[in-house]
């Protein structure tokens, strides 16, 4: 048997087993008394009446970040969190046409070190024909030029991260991308009200009904003042966590920020690897990669588990101190975080943050 036969054989397992695993167990419904039904009906009527007068529309960049949160965390983004992000967002509506394709910068969300941009894509139907349901367009961000300029710190290059996409209510396709500025000076923020972001896009990819992917090359350049917002103060925990059971490690200097949580892990054994996926920060020993030895989770005040999208570690082999940072899936008010949970299976430490 070849090394990977088992893996591919698992891929071929019976379809009924695959579908069964995703079936949701059916819960028995409790019967409701007529009075209770009447009260609920009245409450719904009042809510619906209120909704006529107050329909709030979030920016598309906020909605898109909420979608990302849901994908990473399998849970809906709380309303308070959406409101927080929307306070850092603005509708732009600036359009550029090249190669008979109009690209509109729909909206932007700017946090301290990253910006999230949403573009709408509208190829001229007289040139490209009416878009068929099987035809899709998406922007390639990897060959775009991106930089930020600020009178206080000059020009800083950015790089784009993953995006998303779909159809909007006008039938246009939209594409989103995150732009990160990790080299911003310590106290600088993209959301300080003085930052201008430049982005020049060059490639639009088409996906045709027969699977072909022709590209349209052009130049669509946007320049925008990023919306101003407050960057919340970081929360610093004085706690030192000493693990001595499953893993021998000390964790200290925990700092909670809008974009991530950072801490120093001190251990005599640097022979660890990160095995966490997008949604969970996990650490294992190299010799036993299937045995998770440390997990880190953040829980909001309403009990929601915060999805994370990346883990970075800076190793210092001389001092045995490793600086970890774990990115949130969307900008987050640190004041909304209730607890950080560090666990190695044997021991569990809860760092109470806002109580």
């Amino acid at each position, binding site marked *: *048997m070849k*090394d990977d036969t088992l893996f591919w054989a698992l891929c071929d397992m019976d379809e009924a087993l695959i579908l069964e695993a995703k079936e949701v167990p059916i819960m028995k419904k409790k019967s409701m008394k007529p009075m209770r039904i009447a009260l609920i009906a009245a409450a719904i009527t009042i809510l619906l009446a209120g909704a006529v007068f107050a329909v709030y529309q979030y920016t598309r960049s906020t909605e898109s970040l909420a979608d990302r949160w849901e994908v990473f965390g399998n849970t809906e983004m709380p309303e308070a969190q959406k409101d927080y992000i929307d306070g850092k967002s603005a509708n732009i509506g600036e359009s550029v046409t090249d190669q008979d394709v109009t690209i509109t910068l729909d909206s932007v969300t700017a946090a301290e070190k990253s910006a999230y941009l949403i573009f709408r894509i509208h190829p001229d139907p007289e040139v490209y024909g009416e878009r068929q349901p099987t035809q899709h367009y998406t922007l390639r961000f990897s060959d775009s030029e991106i930089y930020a300029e600020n009178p206080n710190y000059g020009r800083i290059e950015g790089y784009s991260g993953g995006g998303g996409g779909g159809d909007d209510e006008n039938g246009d396709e939209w594409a989103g991308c995150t732009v990160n500025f990790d080299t911003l000076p310590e106290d600088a923020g993209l959301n300080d009200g003085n930052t201008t972001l430049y982005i020049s896009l060059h490639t639009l990819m088409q996906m045709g009904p027969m*699977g072909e992917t022709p590209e349209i090359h052009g130049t669509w350049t946007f320049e925008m003042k990023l919306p101003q917002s407050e960057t919340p103060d970081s929360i610093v925990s004085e706690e030192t966590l000493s693990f001595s059971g499953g893993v021998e490690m000390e964790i200290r200097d925990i700092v909670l920020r809008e974009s991530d949580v950072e801490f120093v892990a001190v251990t005599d054994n640097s022979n660890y690897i990160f095995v966490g996926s997008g949604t969970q920060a996990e650490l294992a020993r190299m010799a036993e990669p299937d045995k998770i030895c440390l997990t880190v989770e953040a829980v909001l005040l309403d009990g929601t588990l915060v999805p994370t999208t990346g883990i970075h570690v800076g190793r210092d082999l001389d001092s045995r101190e490793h600086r970890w940072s774990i990115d949130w899936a969307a900008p987050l008010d640190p004041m909304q975080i209730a607890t950080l949970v560090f666990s190695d299976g044997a021991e569990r430490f809860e760092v109470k943050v806002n109580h």
Partner: protein
Amino acid sequence: MEDEKIIALFFDRDEQAIFETREKYGPYCTAIAYNILSSFEDTEECVSDTYLRTWNSIPPNCPRNLKGYMGRITHNLALTMYRRRSAKKRSVITEVLEELQIPSLEDLVETAERKETARLISDFLRALPAEKRRIFVLRYWYYETIPSISRTTGWKETRIKSELSRIRKKLKKHLEQEGVMS
């Protein structure tokens, strides 16, 4: 819309079939692809390819279960994309390969041995209690994280890890006894 009606739209070459499929199974396919690729852009591309493959394969195919059919297409496309990526981002699939002690992944090639092994695995899983079978499939077909499985099943993460370890050992022994694994 019911699966039969969507399949009929595919047979009629009605592009509404793509809309209906995206509406009904888009999130399911996205979740499968994302667990493998850990990238929004790649996931989007993979799921778009899934719709195209489905469009191009129905007819002549007429799947008994559209969800399972699309899930399998997404799964295979995502694994092909994962293999082709030069810089492999660490994702759940990396963990799964390590857990299964598979050093590298080669091209998916149809072999009689693989089909036979798949049949033996399915038989083995059917004999397990439903909840254990479920965590195994969630981990080794859907490539879900341990915390995600914990949320789905309500089991503690440590319990899931030890159950998975036990099932892997039993499966290995089963395949050895059947003569497909040494």
